[in-house]
């Protein structure tokens, strides 16, 4: 693998010597600015050239484990954002990270990896004529910059001028708020173009939804931990014997449905701009939701009300999904179709995960071994959630992402193993039960 990469890099470098096909010894940082009524969104593409890719990779993969973990992605994206200074009418703005999307390390090594970072900042109230200034710096690597403003989707926003210094590290954008009639009179061709800004297909949103769940290990962990005690009955303040299969299935169905209803609701509201919540508190609350459901899996906190809790925390998880969708900035109808597609993607992935684990949980819940699985799973989720809370609240560095992502990488094997173990437990217990029964003729005899 490493040999192959070295060979590939070498071939590209040699070929580049005669006839380079692409960027070589510098980074390209291309920023597109969308001005909205109350905020600005920056979509940044960072493309490291092949000769600087190894230094960029090592600055992203700070623990050098060959995996770009979510916290490393976040840290790098924050650094790129930290290299920007953004102001509106002289007042400094603090852009917050909306999303970061990374290529594989291999793609970056070949000089074709594009890092996509989106961040946004609220626009303070101001007069009609506004000036936005963006300064870009990248201390790590030699970088060339492209900065452009998109034609605003809002017909009431008019771009007056863009000014840049020679290397585009200093960019000024003059824009004005107008009423729609004058704006559309002046720029008659804009409405048509606006419609065309986002022609993102619904199929790709569906896949985005699937990926969001598959890669959003925190969402999955929450759901799985909540399912852990679902097949069980409560006795006093403890988890006791398994409920019957129909009862268990019904309860699991309720939990998954409630979670879906919850996150669809907030996803819809946030996508239409009815609510707007900053990303960090939402992420902290998601970690808290995992912690609460981990405790619940140990000792029943809210027996029989799992569905309600799943619905409630679903509301919070939906806010996190919305930030992914919101960054795409879709129009009304595209938004409706988009939410549907995105949600279906999330649901499909969720159902796949439930389908992969459910049989094992139900079978094993009928055996004594289940308490180990339940307690073990809950403890793992509990520790992970505490790590996340510390990381997201206090900015502490933890290795939670590395561990959890490492486990998630082997999810299919773990699910298969779990199913195998559940069958073994089931068989052992049945054999023992059969033996006990045959050893008691008084009970079994005629």
């Amino acid at each position, binding site marked *: 693998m490493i040999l192959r990469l070295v060979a590939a890099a070498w*071939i*590209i470098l*040699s*070929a*580049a*010597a*005669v*006839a*380079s*096909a*692409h*960027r*070589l010894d510098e980074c*390209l940082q*291309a920023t*597109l600015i969308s001005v909205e009524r109350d905020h600005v969104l920056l979509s940044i593409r960072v493309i490291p050239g092949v000769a600087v890719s190894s230094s960029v990779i090592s600055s992203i993969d700070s623990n050098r484990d060959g995996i770009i973990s979510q916290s490393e992605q976040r840290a790098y994206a924050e650094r790129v954002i930290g290299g920007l200074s953004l102001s509106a009418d002289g007042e400094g703005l603090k852009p917050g990270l909306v999303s970061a999307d990374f290529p594989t390390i291999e793609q970056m090594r*070949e*000089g*074709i990896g*594009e890092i996509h970072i989106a961040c946004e900042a609220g626009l303070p109230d101001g007069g009609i004529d506004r000036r936005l200034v963006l300064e870009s710096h990248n201390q790590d690597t030699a970088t*060339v910059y*492209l900065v*452009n*403003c*998109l*034609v605003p989707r809002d017909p009431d926003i008019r*771009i007056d001028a*863009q*000014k*840049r*210094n*020679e*290397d*585009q590290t200093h960019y000024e954008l003059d824009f004005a708020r107008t009423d729609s009639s004058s704006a559309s009179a002046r720029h008659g*061709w804009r409405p*048509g*173009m*606006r*419609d*065309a*800004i*986002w*022609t*993102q*297909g619904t*199929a*790709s949103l569906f896949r985005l939804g699937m990926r969001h769940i598959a890669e959003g290990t925190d969402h999955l962990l929450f759901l799985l931990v909540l399912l852990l005690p679902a097949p069980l009955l409560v006795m006093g303040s403890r988890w006791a014997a398994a409920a019957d299969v129909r009862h268990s299935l019904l309860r699991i169905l309720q939990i998954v449905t409630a979670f879906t209803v919850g996150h669809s609701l907030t996803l819809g509201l946030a996508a239409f701009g009815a609510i707007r919540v900053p990303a960090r508190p939402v992420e902290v609350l998601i970690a808290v939701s995992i912690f609460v459901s981990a405790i619940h899996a140990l000792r029943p906190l809210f027996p029989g009300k799992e569905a309600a809790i799943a619905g409630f925390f679903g509301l919070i998880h939906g806010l996190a999904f919305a930030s992914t969708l919101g960054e795409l900035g879709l129009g009304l109808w595209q938004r409706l179709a988009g939410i549907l597609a995105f949600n279906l993607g999330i649901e499909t992935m969720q159902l796949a995960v439930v389908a992969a684990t459910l049989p094992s949980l139900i079978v094993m819940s009928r055996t004594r071994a289940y308490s180990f699985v339940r307690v073990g799973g809950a403890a793992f989720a509990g520790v992970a959630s505490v790590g996340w809370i510390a990381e997201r609240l206090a900015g502490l560095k933890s290795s939670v992402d590395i561990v959890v992502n490492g486990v998630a990488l082997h999810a299919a094997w773990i699910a298969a193993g779990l199913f195998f173990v559940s069958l073994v437990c089931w068989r052992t217990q049945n054999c023992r039960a059969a033996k006990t029964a045959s050893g008691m003729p008084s009970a079994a005899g005629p």
Partner: protein
Amino acid sequence: MKMIPPKSSCSFFLFIAVTLAMPAATQPTVTSQIVTAANTFLSTLDAKEQKNVQFAFDDEKQRARWSNLPVGMVPRAGISMGEMTPAQRSAVMALLSSALSKTGFVKVQQIMEGDEVLKNGTPANPPPVGPAGQRLTADLFGKDLYYISILGMPSETAPWMFQFGGHHLALNVTIDGERGVLTPSLIGVQPALYTEAGRTVRPLGPESDKAMALLNSLDDSQRKQAILSYKLADLVLGPGQDGKVIQPEGLKASAMNDAQRTMLLDLISEWASIIHESAAAARMAQLKADIDETWFAWSGPTTCVPGRSITAYYRIQGPHLVIEYAPQKLGGDPSMHLHTMYRDPTNDYGKGL
């Protein structure tokens, strides 16, 4: 259901078939020729090859699977010219020639020939050689590494498209009835100047020369507006940037005189007239109607060596158009390595039809 006697139903259907076939038989339309060429190409493929070449019309991933990069780095789907038999290759060329104009077809062939030159190098500039003496450019460049794929079923009425491309070339041709759309397409070349049988070839020569002439025709105040004060290292709306509309900059054509506007349209036609003549005529009519809302912006050197290509970036943007011309400094001489992009942000892959 009422039964129609078999004999009369036969003659009835025969009548319908003959009636339907008549206009086509008397006057084959461009689209019917393209469809025939596409079907002929498909018929040269076995079942497995057909499966590799064909995609759903709305396959967004396949639509967006194009790049300026060599095939070795960004793999294309479909099948490559190198894998094909001579008969299949000529069927592909027949499809290209039916869907493109004469000049467009020549341009595409010259771009591919340029990549062959890049692979083979010149005596003064030989290609790099690996430790075992193998030519390292062989799996990156060359005429064999151009791929074709077909999205949807070739049809004279329903929309479908085909893609043809490799290094420095990505043609996305959408056919919808009599309409033909070439956006988005990437047209590049390296080297931008080479000799073939003693003749100098510049596949994108007019794109450079006509732009230089237009810039030279501007007066001082027009130049001041057209020439941007900053450097542009690359395409702003290259691969992956479908549908985005940036704020236009530079000199608006409404501030040009008639002769300059004609020059601008003539420059635009280098991209707009790659598609076959009747689609190009419709496209040019649309772009002519938009001309007063069309902008011309220039960044970089304002002179060029005669007979060579400009090393400046320029952009032409209108309501239905983005053209970017971006020389690449990699490879040493930016006049020899050109990337250009041709877009209609309202009509990516014919979505606006």
